[in-house]
């Protein structure tokens, strides 16, 4: 069984002739578990250009964090295993590269920000020391010089009183400030690619706005390619250029962000957009997606979304849809993508009243 989706990749919104910064081709990652092999990523494709923001949107278990770890080369192996694919940074395949060259890129050219700043920073070392470490290890700077650079970075990310606070420990900072320290570490060596894995999920909404604005400013200043991994449709709409919607380790839909929100080409994306309560709308009943995401060790045959899909047919239950073009620069992995995109798909089922399952429309008694 080939698990790969189409390898055309997608490059909406980029100028032609511009070589991509990062190219992921047909990536496959699996985990060995007691329950069997869990296919966390099943053929992932995307490209990222300088100055561009790609949002990877997905729920828990969709493989979005595993994607980030694989690109960074920090995936726990075992139990993880890269079963195939390529990750090319400026043309060089990261997966076949020797560990020494990879280590030079990691943190230097490809940097990452994690969700939980408190557990990602070392609690027993001053934050200034931790930022300076980047300069000492990668640039071979002397302690004093590195410390001065660290203070400069702390000022750059808007930490008040950076000079005095460089000697403080992580627990002495608030959540938002800790996230700023992580950002300072990540951008210290002027990376080309910045991966932000749920950077604001643990933060309050007013602090989230500050941190997202900082990330966006830094991206423009350094012309970084930003991969924003999140489950928050609001954050994506605010900052992303293009978007890849993941479900069960596969990209379900990939397109320009304006296009995706205006005309989703996959029932899952459509369902997600309809199911979130909006702050600018008191709304009526929410249109929830019924059921639950499938277990990665026990994937349904055919389309992974078919047990929860309102448009599913027998074809969806047997044949796995490939990611294909439905409109210019708009990819979708649905057999009926054109109909969904145009809003003419036929509904075969509807959610049960409690939202826990589906009812076949044909089985319903006529009223």
């Amino acid at each position, binding site marked *: 069984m080939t698990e790969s989706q189409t390898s055309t990749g997608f490059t909406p919104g980029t100028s032609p002739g511009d070589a991509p910064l990062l190219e992921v081709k047909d990536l496959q990652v699996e985990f060995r578990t007691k329950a069997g092999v869990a296919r966390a990523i099943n053929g992932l494709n995307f490209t990222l250009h300088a100055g561009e923001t790609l949002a990877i949107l997905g729920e828990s278990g969709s493989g979005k964090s595993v994607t980030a770890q694989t690109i960074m080369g920090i995936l726990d192996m075992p139990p993880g295993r890269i079963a195939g694919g390529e990750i090319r940074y400026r043309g060089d395949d990261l997966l076949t590269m020797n560990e020494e060259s990879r280590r030079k890129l990691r943190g230097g050219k490809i940097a990452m920000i994690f969700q939980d700043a408190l557990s990602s920073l070392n609690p027993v070392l001053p934050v200034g020391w931790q930022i300076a470490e980047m300069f000492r290890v990668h640039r071979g700077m002397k302690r004093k010089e590195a410390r001065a650079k660290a203070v400069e970075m702390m000022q750059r990310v808007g930490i008040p009183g950076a000079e005095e606070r460089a000697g403080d420990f992580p627990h002495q900072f608030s959540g938002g400030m800790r996230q700023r320290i992580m950002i300072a570490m990540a951008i210290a060596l002027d990376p080309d690619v910045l991966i932000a894995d749920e950077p604001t999920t643990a933060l309050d909404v007013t602090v989230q706005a500050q941190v997202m604005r900082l990330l966006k400013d830094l991206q423009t200043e350094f012309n970084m390619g930003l991969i924003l991994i999140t489950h928050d*449709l609001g954050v994506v709409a605010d900052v*992303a250029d293009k978007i890849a919607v993941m479900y069960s380790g596969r990209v379900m839909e990939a397109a320009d962000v304006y296009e995706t929100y205006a005309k989703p080409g996959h029932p899952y994306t459509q369902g997600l957009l309809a199911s979130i*309560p909006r*702050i600018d709308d008191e709304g009526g009943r929410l249109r929830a997606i019924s059921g639950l995401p499938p277990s990665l060790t026990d994937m349904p045959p055919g389309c992974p979304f078919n047990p929860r899909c309102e448009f599913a047919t027998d074809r969806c239950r047997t044949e796995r849809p490939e990611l294909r073009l439905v409109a210019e620069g708009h990819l979708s992995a649905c057999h009926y993508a054109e109909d969904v995109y145009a809003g003419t798909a036929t509904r075969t089922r509807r959610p049960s009243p409690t939202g826990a399952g589906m009812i076949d429309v044909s089985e319903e008694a006529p009223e």
Partner: protein
Amino acid sequence: MSLSVPAAAADPFADKPSVLEVDGLVKHFPITQGIVFQRKVGAVKAVDGVSFNLREGETLGIVGESGCGKSTLAKLLMRLEEPDAGTVKFRGKDFLSVKGDELRRLRRKIQIIFQDPYTSLNPRMSVGDIIAEPFKLHPEEKPKQGIRNRVKELLDLVGLNPEHINRYPHQFSGGQRQRIGIARGLALNPDVIICDEPVSALDVSVQAQVMNLLDDLQKEFGLSYIFIAHDLSVVRHISDRVGVMYLGKLAELGTQDEIYTGPAHPYTQALLSAVPLPDPTLRGAREQIVLQGDPPNPANPPSGCRFRTRCWKATEICATQEPELISRGQITQLTACHHAQQNEKVIPSHG
């Protein structure tokens, strides 16, 4: 959006009796120093004078950032913590002074659903035992049809398969576990359910299912909810009235419509303007107020208005005089701000 006064929409709960009346609730947690002789060196003012009432069939949303005291408020209302001052009346009866048997009887009527469906269910008890536990603690409420049948009914009610009565919590997903928590909360036919961040641990697609379920149950059983959450969109969707908390106090209290279409307190305005909208075409189309800094330490709140250190409107009066939560001028909702002024622009109308 019309700029007419939102009070035009009549309050549908105006003639409903109050189920819960909360007045001047205060809870300070002492900060101590020393090992043998613990000296009190200060207090974290977690809840510092909160008053509101909850009417029958109504949902009161409480929003605020972490550390504002919203979860402490939930614990006080459940009497899991004893308040330092203030009163809570349940249907006119003083809930804080009752003891023994009477307390147990009243407690049945107020139930709670917790945030984390992973830690709030005992992993060693089957789902049937978890949901039946309220009947063991309150034997006089034992259902006529038998406990097991009633548990099956409850499971069905919250959208779980009654056949799964013998399963354990780890065999369910997060959303299903939250449904189990809801079934347990419903077991004793309560009047009030306090929902402490009931959907924040859930995925987007599952969150909507649980919110719809809470909505349906409210209609079916005439429940009153106190819905505590940090997600402003979720609170707007489910609430009839909304209270905005900041550092242990209510900054603004009004109907969902008043708070979201014409917020008058600067903090509410900043909070609402910071929520990203799921629509890329609105990028840059609205006024965004980005607050500077973090909330101050609740052990040492600023004098006067607690928000003044982060407020762009603050003047001298804010430092000296604490603003009361009252209705001000044309503004129909209650606001605790000397400079309260409605701002309709923080959320663009959704067409």
